[in-house]
């Protein structure tokens, strides 16, 4: 019976396993292998040497770019957490009818199903030198000269990250909040807790798993990004993803692969640390 059960499970899981093997595991293995290869200007050739890693760790650019990547991740994380938590809190505890909750929740999630590229492009008329933000500020008399740092700067990169990824905080946090037993909140109030005390001592601790899942999403998305930074900074800022994609554009695959391996290790270490705080499977 037990063998039979395993067999059915394997057959049902086989297509998923096959896809992940072919398009996830094999590519990772391939990248690790190629990271030890050598490259000429036009081609790559099999070898086993550490040149790519030596070059990577010997260059000050690497450390600067990894630093910038972590900076983007940290700032975006903090902003999406505050905004996402506030929005989820409002939806879960202040909107009273379920229909309204679902409707407003959908309003928050619909942009997720539209194109990220278009959503980035849509900031241009806002942030440009003659954009809406500058025009408005000048007409209000707040500034005399248009601000140059609105577009193609760290500011616009982080703005776009927050715009694209706050959703990944809202959804898991809202999900855990909806499962909090409302009688706990009543109990807290009956015991004399103020609104803030209930928030700090009851709601936030119970919402931690959702916060952790959102954090994993946002941090990994930002650390692995290469297109938002390129587009929103007008190619003036760099992160690890761009380092990789630049090498790819130059056909320096082994060097790109070495950087990718280091990036993957960094991301996995961050996730391993975060996973110590949450059991994902229990939370769905």
């Amino acid at each position, binding site marked *: 019976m037990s063998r039979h*059960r*395993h067999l*059915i*499970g*394997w057959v*049902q*899981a086989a*297509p*998923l*396993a096959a*896809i*992940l093997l072919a*398009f*996830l595991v*094999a*590519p*990772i293995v*391939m990248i690790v292998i190629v990271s030890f290869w050598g490259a000429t200007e036009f081609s790559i050739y099999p070898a086993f040497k550490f040149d790519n890693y030596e070059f990577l760790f010997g260059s000050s650019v690497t450390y600067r770019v990894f630093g910038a990547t972590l900076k983007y991740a940290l700032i975006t994380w903090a902003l999406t957490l505050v905004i996402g938590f*506030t*929005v989820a*809190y*409002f939806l879960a505890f*202040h909107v009273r009818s379920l229909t309204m909750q679902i409707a407003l929740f*959908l309003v*928050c999630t619909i*942009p997720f*199903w*539209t*194109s*990220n*590229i*278009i*959503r980035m*492009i*849509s900031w*241009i*008329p*806002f942030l440009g030198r*003659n954009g809406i933000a500058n*025009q408005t500020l000048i007409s209000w008399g707040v500034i005399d000269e248009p601000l140059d740092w609105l577009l193609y700067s760290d500011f616009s990169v982080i703005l776009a990250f927050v*715009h694209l990824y706050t959703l990944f905080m809202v959804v898991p946090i809202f999900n855990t909040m909806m499962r909090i037993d409302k009688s706990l909140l009543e109990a807290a109030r009956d015991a004399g807790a103020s*609104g803030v005390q209930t928030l700090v001592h009851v709601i936030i601790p119970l919402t931690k798993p959702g916060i952790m899942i959102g954090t*994993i999403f946002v941090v*990994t998305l930002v*650390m*692995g*990004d290469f*297109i938002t930074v390129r587009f929103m900074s007008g190619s003036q800022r760099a992160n690890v993803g761009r380092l*990789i*994609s630049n090498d*790819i554009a130059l056909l320096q695959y082994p060097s*790109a*692969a070495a950087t990718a391996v280091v*990036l*993957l290790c960094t*991301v996995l270490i961050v*996730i391993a640390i975060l996973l110590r705080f949450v059991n*994902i*499977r229990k939370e*769905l």
Partner: protein
Amino acid sequence: MERRPRSFYLLAAVFGLFVLFLYGPIVTIGILSFQGPQGGLTFPMNGVSLHWFRDLFEQQAVGDIWGAFRRSFGLGLMVMVTTVVISVLAGLAFRKRFAGSAILFYAAITSLVIPSILISLGVGLIFNQLGLKVHWATSGFGAQLTWTLPFGLLIMFAVFNRFDRSYEEAARDQGATAWQTIRHVVLPIIAPSLIGVALFGFTLSYDEFARTLLTAGSYNTLPLEIFGMTTNVTTPVIYALGTLTTAFSLAIIGLFLLCAWILGKRRARLGSDAGKGI
């Protein structure tokens, strides 16, 4: 009903600002895509016209937008169907513990959080070394599945965590075979959630960029085409394209939500009221 506390209004205002932040930019390019023929990339509007939309439908100087749209649409449907089928099967598999289930689960999570460029690069390298040509329908298709399948699987987990097993037991007690139980009991019950999986499958594929970048080959999908345009197009035609494809996405989302809603209504109308009292 008790009176709303003052914090409600404050939070409602924050929520309103958040929605404005989410939708403001896209609404803006929606408006700007109706710029007059002399209009630029930002306000003021230089007249109102359909000039830039007409531009899209005429012979283009850059790229092959309609070809890219057809490919993206076809690929989206392929990914959608595959995602639904494989997610349901895997969801059923994970209901019973089978040897290796933990490893497979962690593989799926890795697939979700791995930087997309690694998939793009790795799949590209493999095809390259095997002497195969990358093509959107082969390498691109597989690369996109690594993004949509984990979402499908997570939705199936959520669905089966809330699934009442007594329905299945009832079917089995009445003599249904394992297949009959799945076909006539389990699948109809989870059907509305499958619409959700399909929605994720289609839209995530239709808009996917990073994992398709090095795996689509010489024929671009729509997001790749649009990204190519951003570097060399400086007229509102790019807004017109953005508006059209966003409108298309919204129509698709609306269609899926409508299906889910109709299915729910139908179930409420035709469902038995047994056990609900009078």
